[in-house]
């Protein structure tokens, strides 16, 4: 049995307490110790007349029962007098129940102004006057409870009560704002909509119902709301006949029209179902909640436009589900034959493309890289999978352009995962271009190739959107081609080529070809593409070796027929780039334009298998992150960014389906935590598919869009979901690091320790063991440093927490506790730093050491240099002997080649092509690069600009930076100003020269 809710020492005003509900409230509160002002004008229920008898009777009743009460006979319009009665009699005021009311029921057509005004005066003005007089007392004492009395008639409307309905809903609004204004001062305001038999309701309800609707069934709720233990405020209750329930607003999901795009009456009409459908509803409970859809729309930004064919907002950035495929030597050989290879089987190079047992090894024709990607797109097309927002049929589309890039030579067989994204959508006026990017990964999760398919969509442009790059690329220079290759295409070539996957009958069926307006079946555009690619590799790749191939870009200009003679004109722009054009000799018609093939300078090497353990254990488990990795990355992020918790203050739960999992992201308690399963009571729950979650967390899908399309359901505190914006800050690296940890965990047997000290190659693990030993020996470190550090060691990855704050300090593997300062560094650099081979400051300024969190604390790590090497060695030997040891190290990445020569060669060429560019710089500038060291002089002061190796004697400015930073600058990855402010670019002489380095941009 719970404790009796008492009101001892509390003073309550009940208006209209001479009978009915008011009397019942007064009797109940008085019986529980409250001192009550019983107010009643004593008039009739319709507000006529006045007498003191009603109030006196109730006061007598209360006194007879041993309670305390005084009567007041003033009209509620004189609310101050009623409040004065309470203060005079009891010296304070705690509770106000605005209950007084009258009825003037009449249908609207017969209603008089007086009917309207009188109802307003008693209900609304009266409640205002009483509350207004009471408010200062309640506020000043920091305590108050107010109850307004509303009615179903106000909430829902009721025939003959237009005046009364107005007044009663007016009180609800009045109470809502008072609740907000009073909350800080502990003045809580609620509204009840009671149904009870009273003098007022006797006229409208049948007697048997009135009997069931005793006032005594309403008063307990009023008392509960007025009790000092109550925290309820701003709420509305329906009560009566034994029922008590709370009301709230409900809003449909509604329709959001993106800003900046306008919408018509017809658009509203078309969306009517969505506007009125409560299936996905929310319950706003504040103006902020009311504004939420608007804020979301604002946040989503202006529409990128579209029309009935293309909705750019929906389509752009859409990522398709991953597709998988594989190929082997047979596919490569068939393709090679399909694009006219191996016409001379006695030529070794030709034979190598089709013969898997060739003595020098088989070689893949690099343009094959387009086939798996296009087949993936064709598969999606066959299955009817299209990106949302793209509403055009195949009849409108043409393959406009193709870009295919290889990261390294194609292996002879591979299992691939294709990730397709709508990368760009351009409005070309009448027509549109849609660029689909397909990135293909091999079994190890490493990117193997990238394709961009540019689809020309006839008649789908014209929404005034982004027109895309205007300039023509790869325009042949104004000179005779460096090489021309002529090749007749056999009549049966299309029949051979189609076996590689494009089964479109247009390329085989004469009838179908006629129907499309061609004399005969046409050749696949990509077959011509393969011809050209093969010819250029043969003509210009070093030693005609296809392994040097990097990329090919073409624009399809017109149709080629089997039997045509293909003329490929090639211009060597550099060792690495061949611009070309294909023509049909018979018609002197360009069929491929704006085309180029790029070669690598050196054959790129396959990356070392990142995680041999994973590959062995998982039978080729791809380096594919899963949702768990993302949650672990969130955990890592939260640990690194304690302000996330401060800002969010919410427990989120994610319920994912297919495969099902539940994760709790607690951004409320302590330092925050992320755990699998249902943890602390969630305030905001998000339900969605595992795949959608992955897409959302990796920025490939928009949360708002998922929410809008019903793929993401949010329950609980919906507003809180806006606090998940930090997810955007998760980087693919953070997630992949978790993936690697997960995949690596299977084979994580420590290296054998038997060899002893002589064979020991130190690893980060050893350093941390030494550090632990040092911390144990130097107890004062904790007091001095007083910080928890997290080291995120990369390649191989490991997390170590150095706690120099709690207890005696600790060095432990993994993320333990709440790190305040996080240092990210490659193992090799970490070892160099801790063995004094490299300077932490240098590592930091060159971006090899990243510090986040409390960056100030990183200065306290100087003790690392004081670790006694002998003691460290002893500690490590001991730990290794005990069977522990570092995890197997992964191969480190190879050294990069210098960027500066390429940058300045390209600059030289650019200035030779366009000497006018010198006018931007107008100065002699020396660039000094470090790592590797070199000096270059760019002279834009004279009439003819020049770029020379070596440093001129008297430059206007000397710019010193690392070779890598120069590369980034030339690639547009960073700006001179940023480099300068970060201290990565030193400028001697006239600093403003660095404002004018635009001519470096895009050089590489």
């Amino acid at each position, binding site marked *: 049995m719970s404790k009796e809710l008492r009101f001892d020492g509390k003073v309550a005003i009940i208006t209209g307490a001479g009978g009915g509900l008011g009397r019942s409230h007064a009797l109940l509160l008085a019986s529980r110790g409250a001192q009550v002002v019983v107010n009643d004008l004593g008039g009739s229920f319709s507000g006529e007349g006045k007498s003191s008898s009603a109030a006196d009777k109730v006061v007598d009743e209360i006194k007879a029962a041993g309670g305390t009460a005084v009567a007041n006979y003033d009209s509620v319009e004189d609310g101050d007098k009623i409040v004065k009665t309470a203060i005079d009699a009891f010296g304070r005021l705690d509770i106000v129940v605005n209950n007084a009311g009258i009825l003037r029921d009449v249908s609207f057509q017969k209603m008089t102004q007086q009917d309207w005004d009188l109802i307003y005066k008693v209900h609304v003005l009266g409640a205002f006057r009483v509350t207004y007089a009471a408010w200062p007392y309640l506020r000043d004492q920091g305590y108050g409870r107010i109850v307004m009395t509303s009615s179903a008639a106000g909430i829902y409307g009721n025939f003959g009560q237009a005046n009364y309905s107005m007044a009663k809903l007016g009180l609800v609004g009045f109470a809502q704002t008072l609740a907000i204004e009073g909350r800080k001062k502990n003045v809580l305001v609620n509204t009840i909509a009671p149904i009870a038999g009273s003098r007022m309701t006797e006229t409208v309800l049948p007697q048997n119902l009135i009997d069931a609707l005793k006032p005594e069934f309403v008063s307990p709720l009023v008392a509960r709301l007025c009790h000092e233990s109550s925290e309820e405020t701003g709420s509305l209750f329906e009560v009566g006949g034994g029922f008590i329930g709370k009301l709230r607003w409900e809003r449909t999901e509604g329709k959001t029209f993106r800003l900046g795009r306008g919408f018509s009456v017809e658009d509203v009409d078309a969306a009517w179902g969505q506007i009125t459908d409560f299936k996905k509803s929310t319950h706003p409970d504040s103006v902020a909640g009311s504004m939420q859809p608007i804020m979301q729309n604002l946040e989503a930004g202006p529409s990128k436009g579209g029309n009935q064919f293309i909705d750019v907002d929906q389509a752009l950035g859409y990522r398709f589900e991953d597709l998988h495929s594989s190929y082997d030597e047979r596919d490569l050989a068939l393709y090679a034959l399909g694009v006219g290879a191996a016409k001379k089987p006695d030529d070794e190079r030709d034979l190598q493309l089709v013969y898997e047992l060739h003595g020098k090894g088989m070689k893949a024709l690099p343009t094959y890289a387009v086939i798996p990607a296009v087949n993936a797109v064709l598969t999606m097309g066959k299955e009817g999978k299209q990106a949302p927002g793209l509403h055009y049929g195949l009849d409108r589309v043409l393959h406009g352009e193709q870009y295919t890039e290889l990261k390294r030579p194609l292996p002879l067989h591979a299992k691939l995962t294709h990730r397709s994204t709508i990368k760009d959508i351009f409005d070309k006026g009448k027509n549109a271009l849609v660029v689909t990017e397909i990135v293909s990964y091999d079994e190890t999760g490493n990117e193997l190739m990238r394709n961009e398919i540019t689809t020309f969509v006839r008649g789908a442009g014209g929404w005034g959107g982004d027109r895309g790059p205007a300039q023509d690329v790869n325009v042949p220079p104004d000179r005779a081609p460096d090489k021309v290759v002529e090749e007749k295409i056999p009549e049966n070539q299309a029949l051979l080529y189609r076996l590689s996957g494009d089964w479109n009958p247009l390329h085989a069926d004469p009838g179908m070809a006629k129907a499309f307006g061609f004399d005969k079946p046409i050749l696949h555009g990509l077959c011509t593409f393969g011809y050209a690619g093969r010819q250029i590799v043969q003509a210009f790749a070093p030693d005609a070796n296809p392994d040097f191939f990097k990329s090919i870009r073409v624009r399809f200009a017109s149709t080629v027929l089997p039997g045509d003679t293909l003329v490929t004109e090639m211009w060597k722009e550099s060792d690495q780039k061949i611009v070309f054009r294909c023509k049909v000799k018979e018609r002197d018609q360009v069929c491929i334009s704006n085309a180029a093939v790029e070669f690598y300078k050196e054959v790129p090497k396959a990356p070392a298998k990142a995680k041999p353990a994973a590959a062995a254990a998982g039978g080729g488990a791809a380096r594919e992150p899963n949702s768990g990795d993302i949650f672990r990355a969130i955990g890592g992020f939260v640990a690194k960014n304690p302000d996330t918790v401060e800002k969010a203050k919410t427990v989120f739960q994610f319920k994912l389906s297919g495969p099902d999992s539940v994760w709790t992201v607690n951004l409320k308690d302590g330092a925050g935590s992320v755990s699998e399963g249902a943890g602390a009571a969630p305030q905001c729950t998000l339900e969605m598919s595992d795949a959608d979650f992955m897409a959302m967390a990796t920025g490939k899908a928009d949360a708002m869009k998922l929410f809008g399309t019903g793929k993401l359901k949010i329950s609980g505190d919906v507003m809180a979901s806006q606090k998940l914006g930090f997810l955007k800050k998760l980087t693919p690296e953070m997630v992949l690091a978790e993936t690697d940890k997960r995949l690596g965990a299977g084979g994580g047997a420590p290296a054998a320790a038997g060899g002893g000290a002589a064979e020991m190659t130190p690893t980060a693990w050893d350093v941390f063991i030494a550090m632990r030993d040092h911390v144990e020996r130097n107890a004062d470190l904790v007091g001095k440093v007083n910080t928890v550090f997290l080291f995120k060691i990369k390649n191989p990855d490991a997390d170590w927490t150095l706690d120099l704050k709690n207890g005696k300090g600790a060095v432990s593997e993994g993320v333990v506790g709440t790190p305040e300062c996080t240092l990210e560094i490659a193992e090799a650099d970490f070892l160099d730093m801790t063995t004094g081979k490299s300077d932490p400051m240098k590592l930091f*300024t060159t971006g090899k050491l990243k510090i986040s969190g409390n960056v*100030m604390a990183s200065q306290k790590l100087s003790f690392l240099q004081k670790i006694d090497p002998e003691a460290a060695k002893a500690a490590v030997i001991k730990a290794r002997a005990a069977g522990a040891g570092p995890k197997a190290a992964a191969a480190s990445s190879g050294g990069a080649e210098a960027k500066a020569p390429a940058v300045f060669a390209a600059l030289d060429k650019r200035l030779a092509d366009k000497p006018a560019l010198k006018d931007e710089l107008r100065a002699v500038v020396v660039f000094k690069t470090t790592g590797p060291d070199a000096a270059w002089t760019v002279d834009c002061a004279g009439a003819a600009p020049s770029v020379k190796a070596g440093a001129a004697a008297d430059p206007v400015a000397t710019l010193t930076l690392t070779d890598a930073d120069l590369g980034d600058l030339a690639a547009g990855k960073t700006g001179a100003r940023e480099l300068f402010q970060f201290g990565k670019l030193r400028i*001697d002489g006239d600093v403003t020269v660095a404002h004018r380095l635009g001519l470096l941009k895009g050089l590489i």
Partner: protein
Amino acid sequence: MTSKVNVIGVGMVPFAKPGKSEEYNVMAAKAARTALGDAGVEYREVQQAYAGYVFGDSTCGQRAIYEVGLTGIPVFNVNNNCSTGSSALMLGAQAIAGGAAECVLVVGFEQMEKGALAAKWTDRTNPMDKHANLMNELQGFNQAPPAAQMFGGAGREYRWKYGTKRETFAKISAKARQHASKNPYALFKEVLSVEEIMASEEVFDPLTRYQCCPPTCGAAAAVLASDDFVRKHGISRPVYIAAQAMTTDYGTTFEEKSMIKMIGYDMAKAAAKQVYEKAGIGPENVDVVELHDCFTANELLTYEALGLCKEGEAEKFIWDGDNTYGGKFVTNPSGGLLSKGHPLGATGLAQCTELVWHLRGTAEARQVEGAKVALQHNLGLGGACVVTMYRRD
């Protein structure tokens, strides 16, 4: 009802390196006694005292002043980072101006440790975390002294904007050494050339070692009094405070993503503007300036913030010699923080002392001839900036 605030007595002790000074209470008491003697006032006539210091437990102010006397007067301890001294001075001036006291003693002192400034309380939010985080965003964070990174970063930003030569910053330090060579109270009296300054170890580009103020120990004091008090004691033509203003950070400190703004440029600019308006005297009428040259970069920026030259013209101002004897102004005749030293709590009062001497014509070899209007600028990151104008009729 506000009364004029007269500075009737000043005094300081020669500044010293950490470990080479006397204890804070000894230094502070010496400075206080000197100031009282300078004013010709007995300690028992002092009605309130304000003590500024940054490093030390609570009530060091009482401990120091108790060496001078125990009269039960109110003693307030003031801590406002590098502008602590001027903050104490301002409180004392307010007490006089508001009529709460006829005569107050303001003393500033600091007993510093060796090495760059660092946080003392690491178990709680660092008061400069917003500044540090912004800096990390704008230019990273490294092992250099944090203050040098902040002011040096502002120097970089300025260089980027106006193409300023690295030597220009060094030139400021050369001037400071030149001035300090004539100041017996200064820590570094040895004259250095621009080349020597440039050749010193780089702390944070463009700042080299000789362009950073050293940790210093020292104390300085001032006695402030109302007109009535001055009349009663027959003090003639005292130096008085023509106007004084304090500002703290504005939104622009963090919002504009600018290192120059982050280190308090707008605080200084706004405080100076208030002072010029209150006094009805613009920068063109100022003769001598003591400004907060914790790093050369800040002296350069402060020329512009105080309106001594137009924005973007500091380099020309420096090479034209408009910041030294024979130019438009003499800035930091004492040698400034760079050469005289920077004991945090004492700096604001040492600046005051130097300027009072100039207005009285008793600055000896450093005297700025005919100085009538003096301007003081004292800045603390975190932040607070106090600008004070002194005159003598």
